[in-house]
């Protein structure tokens, strides 16, 4: 029970549990507290109020937390489809798993289970040794699988589940295979079970509102953990759920408060902004090598990380005002980004803090090359794409699609000497009033960023012509990115948007009255000085988020399902 184990225990929930000499972030196990990890679930499972598929990051974080970061998760994740103008988090609430997707999850599951029960590792995850490694051992299998299942399913397993997985381990250990082969199979089965791949939010009758439902304790534990830390509930949270603390508003608030103050909030904040700002688009981003010879894979992979570092620094580390994110001069760069920012970073340094000079047009999130490059074409900048992204992602104001039958004869031609800049080309295009209607919404927010080219590098001219960076937003005229950042920071739409998104992210659903929810949250957000911790705490504890809108199911009619002969493939 020496140092290295304690160090591991911070990450690997299971190893920490079994080597309980370490107490980092864990409730101590004493004789007085019956050991929850070896007990089946006492109450029957409630009605399901929501099923949210784990994202790739949540899957990876959960495995790393439960089994340790040295367990490799190798495989491709079926993408969760983002509903237009919504979050992946709301898409996850409607997501299914296709045959190809499950095939991948199955391969990953077997691979993870093989690592966990590998001879050099399994001792950390097992409270017992089998009587005979060549034969099934139901008792040792149960004692090993119960804590694993509790972490993977985010609640104690039911007696039936324990029996089923122990039986699988037994079957897998027969026929020339050994005990550990059976354990691998049983654990792999847990990892492909819908109970793991989906965060299943179960409900219970709400004593405060007879006839309606609320999320139960374990669903609340998962909600808090994935929302705030983007990972599976740890021992302390599961224990709080076992003890029924999370349906008590005061205790829920106290626990959420602690979690919001933890450095692990960074993981939650990163995941939230990666979702809100459509970071999956970075995977598809391609730049033309002839137009932008300086753009290479190292630059590409640094772009999103730079934005996240700026966000985390401003909102979590410094606990700053969300509005200042659009004007801050503090960012981070690494060697790959050096040339883009005309700064020298040695390869030894990794990521280093970097401060733009006063009046530098780079300040704020929108001056970062990641945003500028993502919303550009492969070979040139695009004020329209940038303006649209600002409207839709940061202000939550969807921009209509171009009409299907529009005639783009007033075209953009980069080589045209008579129209050297994007502003001039767009003016020509907008002589058509049909086009002008939408471009009026987007372009005044994108044109101020025109001093940054298609990969976000600074330029003074386009085709040797000076660039006009005048813009206008909500009636205020301004110049350049600095002016744009100030205008966004001053707008209620900006803070309402992020507040509404936080609610959708937490609950996985669009509120019935989107605008009212966002406005109500915004008022609290304002009172909290626009601190992201406070906003996350608010959505993590608001009663509304735990209320279940679906009515209770009638008593389940399972009789028709009980025939053992009916199987999926047999039904019409």
């Amino acid at each position, binding site marked *: 029970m020496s140092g290295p184990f304690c160090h591991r225990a911070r990450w690997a929930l299971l190893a920490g549990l079994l080597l309980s000499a370490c107490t980092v972030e864990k409730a101590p196990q004493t004789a007085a507290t019956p050991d929850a990890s070896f007990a089946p679930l006492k109450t029957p*499972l409630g*009605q*399901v109020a*929501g*099923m949210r598929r784990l994202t790739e990051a949540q899957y990876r974080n959960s495995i790393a937390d439960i089994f340790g970061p040295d367990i490799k998760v190798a495989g*491709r994740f*079926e*993408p969760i*489809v983002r*509903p*237009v103008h919504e979050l992946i988090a709301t898409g996850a609430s*409607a997501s*299914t*798993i*296709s*045959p*190809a*997707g*499950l*095939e991948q999850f199955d391969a990953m599951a*077997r691979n993870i289970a093989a690592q966990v029960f590998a001879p050099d590792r399994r001792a950390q995850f097992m409270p017992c040794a089998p009587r005979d490694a060549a034969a099934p051992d139901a008792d040792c299998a149960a004692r090993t699988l119960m804590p694993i299942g509790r972490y993977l399913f985010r609640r104690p397993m039911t007696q039936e*589940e324990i029996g*089923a*997985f122990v*039986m*699988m381990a037994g*079957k*897998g250990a*027969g*026929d*020339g*295979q050994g005990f550990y082969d059976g354990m691998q*199979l049983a654990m*792999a*089965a847990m990892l*492909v*079970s819908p109970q793991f791949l989906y965060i*299943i939010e179960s409900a219970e009758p709400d004593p405060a509102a007879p006839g309606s439902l609320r999320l139960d304790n374990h669903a609340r534990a998962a909600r808090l953990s994935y929302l705030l830390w983007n990972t599976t509930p740890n021992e302390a949270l599961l224990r709080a759920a076992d003890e029924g603390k999370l349906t008590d508003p005061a205790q829920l608030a106290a626990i959420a408060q602690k979690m919001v103050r933890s450095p692990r909030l960074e993981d939650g904040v990163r995941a939230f902004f990666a979702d809100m700002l459509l970071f999956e688009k970075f995977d*598809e981003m*391609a730049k*033309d090598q002839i137009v932008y010879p300086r753009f290479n894979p190292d630059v590409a992979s640094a772009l999103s990380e730079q934005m996240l570092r700026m966000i985390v620094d401003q909102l979590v580390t410094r606990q700053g005002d969300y509005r200042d994110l659009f004007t801050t001069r503090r960012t981070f760069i690494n060697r790959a980004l050096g040339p883009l920012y005309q700064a020298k970073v040695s390869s030894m340094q990794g990521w280093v803090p970097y401060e733009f000079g006063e009046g530098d047009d780079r300040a704020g999130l929108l001056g970062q090359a990641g945003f500028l490059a993502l919303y550009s*074409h*492969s*070979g*040139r900048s695009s004020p329209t794409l940038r303006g649209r992204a600002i409207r839709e992602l940061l202000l939550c104001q969807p921009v209509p*699609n*171009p009409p*299907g*039958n*529009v*005639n*783009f*004869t007033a075209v953009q031609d*980069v080589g045209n000497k008579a129209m050297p800049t994007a502003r001039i080309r767009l003016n020509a295009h907008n002589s058509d009033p049909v086009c002008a209607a939408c471009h009026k919404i987007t372009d005044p927010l994108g044109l101020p960023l025109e001093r940054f080219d298609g990969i976000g590098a600074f330029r003074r001219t386009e085709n040797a012509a000076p660039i006009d960076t005048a813009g206008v937003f909500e009636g205020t005229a301004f110049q350049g990115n600095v002016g744009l950042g100030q205008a966004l920071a001053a707008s209620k739409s900006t803070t309402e948007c992020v507040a509404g998104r936080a609610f959708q992210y937490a609950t996985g659903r669009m509120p019935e009255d989107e605008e009212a929810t966002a406005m109500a949250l915004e008022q609290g957000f304002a009172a909290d000085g626009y601190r992201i911790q406070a906003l996350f705490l608010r959505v993590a504890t608001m009663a509304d988020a735990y209320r279940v809108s*679906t009515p209770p199911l009638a008593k*389940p009619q*399972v009789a028709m*399902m009980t025939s053992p002969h009916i199987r*999926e*493939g047999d039904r019409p």
Partner: protein
Amino acid sequence: MSFTLDRRTALRGMVNGMAVAVGLPLLDIFLDGNGTAMAATGAPMPIRFGTWFWGLGVNPPRWFPSAAGKDYELKVELASIEALKHKVNILGDFTLPLDGKPNLPHISGGIGIRTGMAIDSDRGLPGPSFDVSIGDVIGTRTRFRSIELSATGDPRNSLSGRGNGNLNPAEVSPAALYTRLFGAGFHDPNSATFTPDPAVMARRSVLSGVSEQRQALEARLGAADRQRLDQYFTSLRQLENQLDVQLTKPAPMQACVVPPKVPDLPVNAEIENVMRNHEIMTDLLVMAMACDNVRLFNMNFNNGASSLTRVGSTITHHQLTHEEVLDNRLGYQPEVTFYVDKCMEAWTYFIKAMDAVKEGDRTLLDNSLVFAHSETEFAKFHTIDNIPMMTAGSAGGRIHTGQYITGDGSPVSRVGLTLQQAMGVPVDRWGTGSLETNKIIPGLIV
């Protein structure tokens, strides 16, 4: 022994990207006299179905034949299919009525053709795509229910799925596709020996253990989540099926030869990479069908709002369709047409690769039905009537080929209905709203 080597050598040429007709010797031990059934079991040769999608349409006057009927005239943009013209049908003049719903550019067209529904807003597939319904008939006994591919990257580039916005993600990397098809779990159907793997047997029984937990979970669900869970268990059933297939001695397949490994290659939308990745993925897919590991596929050459690019070009294929000037002298947009030609070149590669695999007197293409379509007619104006479509192969003699068939303004859902019927789906009415139809295309079905 030397025989095996010869076959491998011959096929390696194909996998390296040359669509050469591979002269495999006819093996009477595998097939009955006329190549329609396997001699060993008397089972009929498998009939495959697949789709081949390309985005942004064509230049209609340069693509559609001038007159309907047999032995149609090949226009310049279809010239590359000449050698296989007699095995290809061209379909034109079908419409996609939207019943007042908006025309979502590059989305309404492809989804309309595949689901028989006009989509309301961009939330993905509103209902099952008809390839999935065909898969329920032909895809349940093979190792893979279906294989989805995208040659331009992006696993979301797929028009196949069971609805509710969900889709079957596409494989984008040739190397990963190789591992999936021919890595661990592949069993050479021509191998003399077969021993069921006890580890696979154990996995099989464990998976049934998971599906037995269905009832307990289902009792706790409302209708919407129950439907999602049904889809999960359908996927699980397919996984069980894969293992069943691995536990059964496969019937010998004459043309099945394990292809050599493919290297890791860049995956992106640059046209030369796309062409190469498409060729490699085509070769692997064709071989997986020759080995009868899969009977259903969806190949997406590019995406609807095509992100294809060329080195040195500042904008994509999609933007070009809007921004390139129509050359009045030529009557088309030359830069855009470069990509149209590339799409048709790739399509030709695809059907030639299928036709190069002999199955008795027939070819793999003859024993298949491939449905190719785009999502717009003419991309510059986003038109969705008269979207270009083709079929290739006769589905083992169930489909007449070599004709230009016009719909005379009837709904495009007739195509989906006809193809489903040809593949044995018990459906006599398909589509919603104005797309609902019970009229098949009589000239297509034998």
